[in-house]
């Protein structure tokens, strides 16, 4: 690994203005509200959070599919938002995406062959005689798609097979960075593991960097090196995968982790769940101060007024919680009642 980040997100914000109520009063949804992090080459970086916290929007911002309200996204040192249209389209070769919903991510009017070939056509890649067919063969092979599927249409396939086609399309041009937006959450549990293993193998084969978006810690646990936890448009905690699981520093992370089943059944039986009270607040009217305070069991008066900032609470472990209630509890064992 070199020590130049491949992706650098700085102060990224995306605010949507939406109409509220019958009379069309304008409201602002702060879908992404000041997110910064950087990702190293060939790293797997996870973004985890509940539904509606802005993960998809963040992914689309990284891919420059959405324009940012504020902030920048630098890919290999170049700010994507400052590139000309032509430059941006060229850069997109290296920057690919896998979508959550395999039913909406494949054009129903195109055959599998057309879908996988399209990136090669757009960038005029592998254009020598026979090279495209060879490339497609290779992609089918590594993604586990049968040759006989080439002439068929997406609606003839199951979710898992479709997702493989989507992955083959994303990898067609040998990208460097892949944003995977909940790539398994729409699939049957039995298929999820297959696709996750495939993504893991492909990362080695293609030397990929992943930004892996998920709402489920158990999905990212084995795949990702670092994890950022998001709540209402902000990153509340960012740490290495193992340290985050062993020693969560933010009450929100603690609560989310307590809901993750533990593989060892004897420990699993004694797992204590911390129930989050209430729903995720409306992003149109987020709570004052720390957005998490109404659901936080450690909340103090100051949390209602002062918005926390992301601070390095331990080495390479960043937390947006000045209360820091876990100073005395170094391991997850503390969460298990004996």
């Amino acid at each position, binding site marked *: 690994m070199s020590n130049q980040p491949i992706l650098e997100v700085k102060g990224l914000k995306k605010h949507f203005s939406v109409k509220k109520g019958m009379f069309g009063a304008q409201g602002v949804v702060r879908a992404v509200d000041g997110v910064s992090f950087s990702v190293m080459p060939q790293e797997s970086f996870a973004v985890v959070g509940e539904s509606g916290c802005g993960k998809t929007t963040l992914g689309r911002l990284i891919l420059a599919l959405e324009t940012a309200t504020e902030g920048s996204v630098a890919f290999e040192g170049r700010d994507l938002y400052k590139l000309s249209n032509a430059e941006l389209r060229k850069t997109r070769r290296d920057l690919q995406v896998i979508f959550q919903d395999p039913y909406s991510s494949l054009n129903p*009017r195109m055959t599998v062959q057309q879908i996988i070939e399209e*990136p090669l056509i*757009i960038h005029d890649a592998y254009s020598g005689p026979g090279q495209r067919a060879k490339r497609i063969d290779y992609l089918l092979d590594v993604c586990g798609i049968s040759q006989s599927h080439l002439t068929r249409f997406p609606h003839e396939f199951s979710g898992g097979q479709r997702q493989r086609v989507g992955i083959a399309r994303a990898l067609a*041009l040998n990208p460097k960075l892949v944003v995977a937006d909940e790539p398994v959450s729409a699939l049957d549990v039995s298929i999820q593991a297959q696709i996750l293993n495939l993504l893991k193998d492909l990362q080695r084969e293609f030397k990929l960097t992943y930004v892996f978006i998920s709402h489920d810690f158990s999905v990212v646990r084995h795949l990702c090196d670092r994890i950022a936890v998001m709540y209402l448009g902000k990153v509340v905690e960012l740490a290495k995968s193992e340290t985050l699981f062993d020693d969560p520093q933010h009450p929100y992370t603690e609560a989310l982790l307590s809901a993750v089943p533990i593989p060892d059944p004897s420990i699993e039986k004694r797992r204590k769940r911390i129930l989050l009270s209430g729903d995720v607040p409306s992003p149109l009217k987020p709570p004052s101060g720390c957005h998490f305070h109404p659901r936080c069991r450690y909340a103090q008066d100051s949390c209602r007024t002062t918005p926390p900032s992301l601070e390095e609470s331990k080495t390479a472990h960043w937390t947006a919680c000045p209360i820091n209630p876990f100073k005395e509890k170094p391991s997850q064992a503390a969460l298990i009642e004996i």
Partner: protein
Amino acid sequence: MKDKIRHAWKLLRRRPASLVGFGLIAFFFAVAAAAPLIAPPEKNSRDAYLIPQDGYSPDPVRPSAKHLFGTTEQQYDLYYGMVWGTRTAFRVAVVVVASSLTVGILIGGAAGFYGGWVDELMMRFTDIVLAFPDLILAVVIVTVTKPSLSNVMLSVAAVSWPSYARLLRGDVLSIKERDFVSAARALGASDFRILSRHIIPNCIYPLLVVASLSMGRIVITAAALSFLGLGAPVGYADWGQLISLSRNWLLGSNGNPFEYWHTVFIPGFAIFFFVLGWNLLGDAVRDILDPRQK
């Protein structure tokens, strides 16, 4: 391909109504195609679409062996006019549908895809055109451009595109939010490619259904213009024109209201069945083109 045709046939058979539509249009098509055989033009005629006249008497003559469908006023042969008029009907319908679809796709597609001020501008223009009653606007356009068959087509096309534009815009708005469009954009596809490969193919089918349904309406509007004397020149094989030749004979003669029935009913029914055929076929087209109906 073979599979597709077999599949289309299976769907057609499942719905007797669309089979009737298919039969009607196939019949009219056969008549149009065989026109030179079943109604051969006279040797010295300079344009096969000009209906031969048998004398100049103003009163229509009833069907006879010599004139299968009788004659209209001025002794135009109704059978000949009906057969060649079928070709005119197809030509008007196809030309108008093709040109108004093209304009509708360009305007509706651009409005939905680009949004913002492009959308605003194009849709307000569409609203203005839609605000006029079809027939009146068409009459104005033909009158300004001088009556002729091609100006009839122009004017009917000019009033037909807004409904396509509107329909397409709505579909484009919803399709462009789908992930496969984002995927194409993330691959670096150009706007043109995204529109032509990803968006339009996914919203064109409702448009084609509406187009085949409107084939009939177009023929009616064109016939109405001809009836008003704004279409083809007198004596040209055109159903609307033939009805307009019956204008003075609608009530028959004293004591015999049906004396000249053939001048009204024959072209009238032809238009009726032509329109019915397209309407029934439009429903069938929808079923066949929907790929999920397998």
